[in-house]
């Protein structure tokens, strides 16, 4: 029987939004892995990190409390699973605050009452990579590989928010290995480079482009210097920042970057025999041609 999860897809995954390719490939990946994602009905934005500026503490935490309350009501007994790093972080952080403070929980529930909801704190908030690592495991993941991603050299870019402050159980903050292990499990080569957990600037890519593009440049430069021909990440903002600003970075720093940045869900889909469209490879601004070729074989 399929594993069931209460799914929190997040704003950027929606049709016509910046990580819609993440959702398409996640759905394909889950079909191959026999994972059933039950979307939380009427979920709302988590406030991301930058939401602090306008939202403050309680309104921000109440956003996540509403999602968890809806999940508890409609998908009882299931873990909340997010694909977006910020969605996961905000939800897990909110749960921690709500469960550690009676006052915060009471306040959030007073607000939730206005929407006819109640937060009980019964469900865990997890990231999709945790499901892959902990509930499926690398060994089982490797068994389903039909097309090993042979010859691909991939820089696993973990970034910040799937890694800090919570991270994946048993991994170090400075050098988490799960993404490299996943890449190797799929038959590709994981490149060792020194910018695996460097910040891409996050939301400040919009407000402080110059400072953020320096971060992005360092990440891509290191990936290239260590022989990577693709970058893969578990975070939609890492993906967007590192992929779409390459033209800007090139203009600013005189570089000639043109490296594809994909999601782990796209790699898994292709390795499991999925087509390029199932892996949403048409959603790349910089086409992942080597992966497309493999998918087409």
């Amino acid at each position: 029987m399929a594993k069931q999860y209460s799914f929190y897809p997040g704003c950027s995954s929606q049709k016509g939004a910046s990580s819609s390719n993440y959702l398409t490939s996640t759905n394909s990946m889950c079909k191959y892995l026999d994972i059933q994602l039950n979307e939380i009905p009427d979920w709302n934005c988590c406030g991301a990190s930058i939401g602090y500026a306008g939202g403050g503490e309680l309104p921000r935490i109440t956003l996540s409390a509403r999602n968890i309350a809806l999940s508890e009501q409609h998908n009882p007994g299931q873990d909340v699973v997010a694909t977006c790093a910020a969605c996961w972080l905000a939800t897990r952080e909110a749960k921690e605050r709500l469960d550690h403070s009676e006052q915060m929980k009471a306040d959030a529930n007073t607000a939730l009452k206005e929407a006819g909801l109640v937060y009980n704190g019964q469900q865990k908030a997890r990231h999709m990579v945790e499901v892959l690592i902990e509930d499926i495991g690398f060994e089982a993941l490797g068994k389903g590989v039909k097309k090993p991603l042979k010859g691909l050299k991939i820089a696993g870019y973990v970034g910040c928010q799937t890694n800090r402050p919570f991270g994946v159980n048993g991994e170090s903050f400075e050098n988490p290995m799960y993404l490299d292990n996943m890449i190797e499990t799929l038959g590709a080569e994981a490149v060792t480079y020194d910018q695996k957990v460097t910040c891409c600037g996050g939301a400040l890519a919009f407000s402080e482009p110059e400072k953020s593009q320096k971060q992005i440049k360092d990440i891509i430069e290191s990936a290239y210097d260590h022989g990577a021909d693709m970058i893969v990440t578990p975070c939609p903002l890492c993906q967007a920042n590192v992929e779409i600003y390459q033209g800007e970075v090139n203009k600013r720093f005189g570089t000639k970057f043109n490296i594809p940045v994909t999601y782990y869900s796209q790699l898994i889909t292709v390795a499991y025999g999925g087509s390029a469209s199932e892996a949403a490879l048409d959603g790349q601004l910089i086409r992942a041609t080597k992966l497309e070729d493999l998918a087409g074989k």
Partner: protein
Amino acid sequence: MSKYRNSFLKEVEEKVEEGNWVKMCMQCGVCAGSCPFGPHWAHPPQEIFMMIRAGKREEVLSSDSMWMCTSCYQCIVRCPRKLPITHIMHGLATYASRLGLVPKSQPTQAFGQLFWDNLVKVGRVNELKLSLGLYFKDGFGQGVKNAMAMQSVGLGLMKAKRLNPMEFFGGHGVSDKSGFHAMLKKAQEIEDQRKKPA
């Protein structure tokens, strides 16, 4: 004992998110050395903590340092005293906003507010309106220039179906808008009550 405590530290402890941790800082500076935007902070976190303890209210709250936080959480995981530094910085920035002490045209404050207002409207972020709001925040002329400069990024995203021009006329949102808005209004009321500036 309270008379030995300066009033700004007390204010931060009471009114700023996770502010009760400030006194735990031991001034090692690992946060400053770990921050990706470290060189851009006029006062790195450990300095901010010391300034709070020294009662430098105006200097702290009107500084744009806290607005350099990218929410990467590097400082939190490396802090030997386990201070939730990221959240304290967010808290100080928010508190400064409430008091109207943020430097004029601080870009991250402006973008953060834009983001919040955007998501509150229909319950989900409308990326098209968010980008346009950012480009046009300094008026129409500058907006057109900004939009033109980012044209290739926008067109690339549209081609990849990751930006939808039709979002301008509506787009995704929650169904229970009235419940969502009533909930946030109540949360804001309670927040205002608890965090009312001293």
